[in-house]
């Protein structure tokens, strides 16, 4: 991530880059300060003989509030005290500080690390014992999330990124770390959406598309790309490999917020598809503290709809029976407060439950290989037949 280079590189977009760089510097300084503050508090209590502790906001369903007027999920105010002199928390306390130190290092060196990289950077054997500082990456990931919420900084601001997932193609040009990328010329593979999509890394340029079509997975995305759907319908085509990672969500959010592009989702007709939509629209429980920057309340759910089995005249073969887990999950989703007062959604979920089966987007292939790109989606778009 040659950030320094970007500033030096002569380019027509000098101004935006400069401001991006300075805003990053500012942000880094702020993050470093928060980290220092965290450690400072501990040092102070330690030296004065008081109990060293820190507050970690709770990331749980219980502490997630549904903000109806904004249409997003937000994190509540509940926080847990993390104490050194507590058997259950001592280890986590140590790990939090260890990662705090690691991040401050990253900021200083102006580098970024993956979640896995962070795990290794904090990993060592504690002196005089056989105990490792982290048992596995899961433990380390959890600590990073704790750190994010406790100092109120985003993962991007901590210079940490996740494994990238998700692809994009369409009528748009973007500048990624100074490189101009024309998403119209990405061949069959598409542009891999990076984990960090903050304005200082990615700037949009030449946004011609009218909307974004987000599909659930890579296989469906391939179909649309091969048929050059984005060309014929002047749109951007994205996919998130299932539950979309933060990078994809941030990208969609920015396209929606900065360029007013509607986000239209084509997902499976099953509880998991429904929940993917819910995360894109309102935000997730575990990242509720970032909803303001990730959630897209205007996102639309195009399909697959429960009615499509009859509406499209699909054969019995595409039915996949709902198992008990699916049914439980579907009912759970229907009861989420942000679904509870949506008549359309209650109807949708009920229809699916009544059907007793789920359907994948690929089931439309039984009609014709390009049925989904040539008939299904264009017709629905035209009729504005979606729910939200």
């Amino acid at each position, binding site marked *: 991530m040659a950030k320094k280079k970007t500033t030096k590189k002569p380019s027509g977009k000098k101004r935006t880059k400069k401001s991006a760089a300075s805003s990053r510097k500012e942000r880094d300084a702020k993050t470093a300060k928060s980290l220092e503050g965290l450690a400072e508090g501990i*040092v102070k209590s330690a030296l004065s003989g008081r109990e060293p502790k820190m507050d970690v906001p709770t990331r749980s369903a219980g502490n997630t509030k549904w903000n109806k007027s904004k249409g997003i999920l937000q994190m509540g105010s509940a926080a847990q005290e993390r104490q050194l002199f507590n058997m259950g928390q001592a280890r986590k306390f140590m790990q939090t500080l260890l990662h705090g130190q690691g991040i401050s290092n990253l900021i200083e060196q102006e580098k970024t690390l993956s979640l896995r990289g962070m795990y290794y950077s904090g990993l060592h054997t504690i002196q005089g014992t056989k105990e490792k500082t982290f048992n596995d990456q899961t433990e380390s990931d959890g600590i990073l999330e704790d750190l994010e919420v406790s100092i109120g900084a985003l993962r991007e601001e901590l210079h940490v990124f996740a494994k990238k997932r998700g692809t994009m193609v369409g009528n748009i040009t973007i500048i990624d770390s100074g490189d101009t990328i024309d998403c119209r010329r990405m061949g069959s593979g598409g542009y891999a959406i990076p984990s960090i999509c903050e304005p200082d890394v990615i700037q949009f340029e030449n946004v011609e598309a009218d909307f974004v079509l987000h599909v659930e997975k890579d296989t469906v995305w391939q179909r649309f790309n091969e048929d050059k759907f984005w060309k014929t319908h002047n749109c951007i085509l994205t996919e998130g490999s299932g539950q979309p990672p933060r990078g994809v969500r941030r990208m969609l959010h920015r396209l929606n917020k900065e360029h007013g592009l509607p986000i239209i989702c084509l997902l499976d007709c099953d509880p998991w598809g429904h929940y993917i939509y819910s995360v894109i629209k309102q935000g997730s429980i575990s990242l509720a503290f970032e909803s303001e920057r990730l959630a897209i309340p205007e996102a639309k759910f195009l399909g697959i709809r429960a009615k499509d089995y009859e509406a499209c005249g699909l054969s019995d073969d595409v039915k996949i029976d709902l198992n008990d887990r699916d049914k439980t999950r579907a009912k759970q989703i229907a009861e989420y407060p942000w679904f509870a007062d949506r008549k359309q959604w209650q109807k949708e979920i009920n229809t699916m439950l009544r059907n007793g089966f789920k359907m994948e987007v690929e089931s439309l292939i039984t009609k014709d290989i390009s049925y989904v790109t040539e008939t299904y989606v264009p017709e629905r778009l035209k009729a504005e037949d979606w729910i939200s």
Partner: protein
Amino acid sequence: MAKKKSKPRATAESMASKQREISVSEFFAKNRHLLGFDNPRKALLTTIKEAVDNALDACEEAEILPDIEVKIEELEAPPSPTKPGRYKVTITDNGPGIVRRQVENIFGKLLYGSKFHRLKMSRGQQGIGISAAGMYGLMTTGKPMVIHTKPNKKKAAHHIELAMDTSKNQPEVTIDVETDDFPETSTGTGTMVAIILEARFQRGKTSVEAYLEQTAIANPHAKITFIPPDKASEDPTLEADEQAPESNGDEESSEIVRTAEYADRIEYPRTIAELPTETEEIKPHPYGVELGNFLRLLKVTDEKQLAGFFKNEFCRVPPSVVKEVTKKASSSKKTITGQTYISTIDNAAAEKLYKALQDSKLRSPPTDCLAPIGVRQMLAGMLKGVQAEFYTASTRNPAVYRGNPFQIEAAVAYGGDLPGDQQARVIRFANRVPLLYQQSACCSFKSVVDTSWRNYNMSQPRGGSPVGPLVIMIHMASVWVPFTSESKEAIADYDEIRKEMKLALQDCGRKLGQYIRRRQKMKREGERRDVFERYIGEISRACNALTGTDTKELYEALMKQAKRRTEIADAQLDEEGKFIKDEHGKLAKEEDVIIVQNGAVANEVQDAAKQEAVAKPSKRSTKKSAKKKVVKKVRKKKTTEKASLFEG
């Protein structure tokens, strides 16, 4: 059938010629298993057991602190693992010795002794043991029993060799001389018995070693030296060096005296320099007398009248009861009173008397006839023989079964080097004699299984004994221990006995449970501190990187806090849970508990150990040859450990 025809029919006369008295010795020669000589291995154990029991009984009666040496020499190794070898067993004591004219009777006659005819708590009961052992030796090897005895310290010892004529139950003296060759004992008197017999020497659960070890536990006042065959030929000259720690009588430090294994012997040291209380002989209690016995007593008594008979042949039959009983036994034909002459009582009347007596309300028999081992002594014994960290013991009050007074004691040793994944070891005693066989048939074992050890934080499979690092000792003291067979291997299962045993075990169990809980608590606190200390280094370094605070300063501040916090936690536990504090103080102060931590011990049992530390070792060694030899490192070498008082 053919034979029968050719022979003249047996007549009463011809049969009578074949009928003759069977001597007791003949009977037992044929039925040796009844006395515990079923196989060569057991024969060796029984021989030693009988001799040691006799020696201990004799010493105690003469109020001598017993010094006993058991030596086994291998004369011929077993030719194959299934066949017996030939061994010479020598048991030496420092007892009062035996007067010359009694030697034949004691060692050469079965059923001769002082113990059968009285109700008194003693180790042997029937008086068949040692002579049966001699007879077994004679039968298997043809060698007579050799007895050295010195009843008078100023006179020479007797050397007598005895063979036994089994058909006559009569001893036959083959050699009878006076000799000066008698080992020096602490008292100047003593007895040494040597028997050569066919046997097999083995180690393990039912071995001589196990028997002696357990005897030492139940008899902490005795010093027992054991020289097994593989040590019999070892050079004893270096024992003085080895004994050094024992005789270092440092007044300030109390030491745990433990069983020690040397190159040439195993020594079970004396840890209590105090003899068991002398027990009183008692008359039978009517409830424990059966009708046949009652009739016999009526016949053999020297008393002329019933009043005297009841008064002198029984205990706890006051005149009021005599009056009541005689009245009940009276009929219209004959009036019976205390003044009635015994000679006029016929069987029917005797039976009536007996029934009336059984129905009458009698006080329990006196209990001064019992000498329990005692809590202090049991603890000393366990401390010597079992390497554990927690010891507790309990002595119940005397109780009565079938008119016989008895007393139950139990002790428990826990933790330390004991194996944690096995069932608890149960060691059983009757009148201080270890019971090695038929564990599952024994009332004491059943009572262990009956007790629910889970209440005391031990694991226990359903219907089994507890599992864990535990040794359980049960002792029954009684004037008449009800064994299930003549070989005295298991205590019969009387409800009264089992109940007492359970109560004693529960008493020990409660203390054990308290200790285990306390230890768990302490362990948790220790772990807590460990955890904090482990992370403090990491935290100080991270904070140093983030804020620039001095790592060492921060580390020390946090360490100080960690120490204080775990201390505070200790204190809080004490204050909040009075339970803990009380328990802590109580357990450590109690007299029936010993806690050993890193070789440190709590309480006064050590006084005895100290006294003993001063006691001089036997001088026997000086007589033996004085060749120098390198001290062998031995398997179980456990000398003494340093100990300090555990502050309550």
